[in-house]
């Protein structure tokens, strides 16, 4: 029973950390609660669907369907995070101003929230489908039954939610003017880590056949399947045995997002006056 609680906790933690960062990144943006709820609910529904069709997905593309599905889903999240950060670079000033005028809606902020809802949905979908497969497996066997599933499911989810709330509370302690810079960096590293994981799935599926050499092994210092290693894996993309291709993807995404946000900041939105006009 404790084992299932720990496994569910670990999976929920992975998705929960992402929700915590997104919540902090959208601090003060009107309508964020609805979009984040959309993301979580959509992800939960999606994870049940993915779990139900797991065997079908797995057998696609010469039995590399699971790898290609994971890689695709991660790369969609990377694109959404890049887009969100570019959007923030364009609108950050208005957002900061509007946050002072409490309750003042930021127009067209919905698009950026939708992108982050997709990121959350994807994170919940990936980890959630593992939870569903794990728990339905236990239900199907004689060893545990409903008591184990309930204890593992609910306990693990509560613990995972608690940690993500703690992360969120910790982040929002940061003064507002530094909060945006901090969360932008966190989202950038989150995207880079996701890209590196996606690259690994592509290599595992035999789609990517170059750059497979492992660059270093820091598993003696911190294993990436330990609890701290796993949290760092989600937050900054820590991997104890990165391959060349993973490092290239990681650095490439960080540089790519930096260039994109710099370019976006230099191209302010054409509807600036409309967005920035104060309501009072």
């Amino acid at each position, binding site marked *: 029973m404790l*084992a299932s609680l720990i*496994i569910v906790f670990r999976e929920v933690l992975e998705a929960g950390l992402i929700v915590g960062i997104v919540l902090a990144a959208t601090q003060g943006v009107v309508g964020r609660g609805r979009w984040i709820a959309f993301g979580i609910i959509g992800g939960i529904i999606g994870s049940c669907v993915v779990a139900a069709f*797991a*065997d079908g997905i*797995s057998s696609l*593309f*010469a*039995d*590399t369907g*699971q*790898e290609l599905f994971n890689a695709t889903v991660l790369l969609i999240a990377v694109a959404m995070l890049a887009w969100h950060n570019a959007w923030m670079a364009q609108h950050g000033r208005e957002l900061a101003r509007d946050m002072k005028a409490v309750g003042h809606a930021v127009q067209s902020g919905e698009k950026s929230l939708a992108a982050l809802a997709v990121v959350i949905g994807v994170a919940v979908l990936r980890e959630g489908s*593992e939870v569903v*497969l*794990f728990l*339905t*497996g*236990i239900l*199907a*066997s*004689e*060893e545990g039954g409903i008591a184990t599933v309930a204890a593992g499911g609910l306990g693990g989810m509560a613990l995972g939610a608690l940690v993500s709330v703690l992360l969120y509370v910790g982040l929002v302690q940061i003064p507002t003017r530094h909060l945006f810079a901090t969360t932008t960096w966190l989202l950038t590293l989150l995207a880079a880590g996701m890209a590196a994981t996606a690259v*690994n799935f592509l*290599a*595992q*599926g*035999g*789609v990517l*056949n170059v750059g497979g050499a*492992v660059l270093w092994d820091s*598993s003696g210092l911190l*294993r*990436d*399947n330990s609890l701290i290693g796993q949290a760092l894996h989600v937050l900054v993309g820590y991997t*104890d*045995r990165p*391959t060349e291709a993973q490092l290239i993807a990681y650095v490439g995404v960080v540089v790519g997002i930096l260039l994109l946000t710099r370019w976006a900041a230099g191209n302010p939105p054409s509807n600036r006056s409309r967005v920035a006009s104060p309501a009072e």
Partner: protein
Amino acid sequence: MRRVSLLSAACAIALSGAAFLQAAPVRADDVITIVIKDHKFEPAEVKVPANKRVTLLVDNQDATSEEFESGEMKVEKIVGGRKQIKVMVGPLKPGRYPFFGEFHEATAQGAVIAE
């Protein structure tokens, strides 16, 4: 003009994606079977040729699902209850590469020996 170049870029990406999928190995040689039973791997140690890409067929005979995982081989794949999956590993340098079942880590332990 800009639209045309965007379009051709999109086509190029789609085509190279299709080429990638075509290139995905479908050969069935070098398949090594590992059975999961009572949350244990059978055999717990398998020998594979070094410096060669091999396919592991993980046959889960338990009712519970399992996640076949190895940091050393950099693989992670879910296999449903009473289902099978194929995991491609390598090419591996000679050595011992432990793997485990993430959902039943206490008992599900094994290793690939490349030589």
